[in-house]
């Protein structure tokens, strides 16, 4: 496992923003859709979302601010795509910690029972 240099570490945006951005059902669903169907326009993302285009735009901007999604111009429209790396790190880390606790609690169970 390679260590991350201090310089690289300083360049990383604040992880807290990633987690704040994900703390919303609409945004989580946007992330899911961008992952399942690939890059999409705001119009496509609004269809079937049950919220206004304006709201979707606002949520996409929040995901963008957190570095989770990026916009790109394609012809006349803006297409959003997912930046998977950041989300991946946060989720996998929690899964790891969760597994460590499962093991520790299993040892505690054997210890007290």
């Amino acid at each position: 496992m390679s260590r991350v240099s201090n310089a690289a570490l300083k360049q990383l945006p604040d992880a807290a923003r990633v987690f704040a951005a994900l703390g919303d059902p609409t945004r989580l669903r946007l992330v899911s859709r961008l992952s399942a169907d690939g890059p999409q326009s705001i119009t496509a993302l609004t269809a079937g979302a049950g919220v206004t285009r304006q709201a979707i735009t606002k949520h996409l901007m929040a995901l963008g601010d957190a570095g989770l999604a990026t916009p790109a111009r394609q012809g006349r429209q803006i297409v959003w795509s997912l930046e998977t790396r950041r989300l991946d790190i946060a989720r996998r880390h929690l899964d790891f910690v969760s597994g460590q606790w499962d093991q520790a609690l299993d040892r505690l169970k054997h210890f007290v029972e």
Partner: protein
Amino acid sequence: MTDRIEKTICLRAPRARVWAALTDAGQFGAWFGVSLRGPFVAGMPVEGRLTIPGYDHLDWTFNVEAIVPQTQFSYRWHPHAVDASVDYATEATTLVEFALSDEAGGTRLRVTESGFDRLPLARRQEVFPLNSEGWEKMLAKIERHVLAADPAR
């Protein structure tokens, strides 16, 4: 959503027994895998050395936050601080809380660890080898979480 971990386990043991396993330094060390010096006192640090094979060259410290007899025990630490060449002292800590309550035939224990948001992203990445798990798998989990949390779907 990703700042904390919460686990609940039901133990077939009396509450006093579970309490001792959590707050007696020797007993805690026995199941946790660490050899500790000194008792747990609220507001005081506890030092020791890990005894888990593969990690037994590492010193281990935590700061006891609160002790409410038979009910609650909490400490702060640097999670998975497993690189002996790194000084973790300046990094953010997470808070680990154990809460006990009575349960038919035993004791219910809830463990919460929180504060992961404040850890540097690079640090969170260190705990797993790159490319060990697919992004799709992770997304499936998140999607399940979303659908479970959203009754409209």
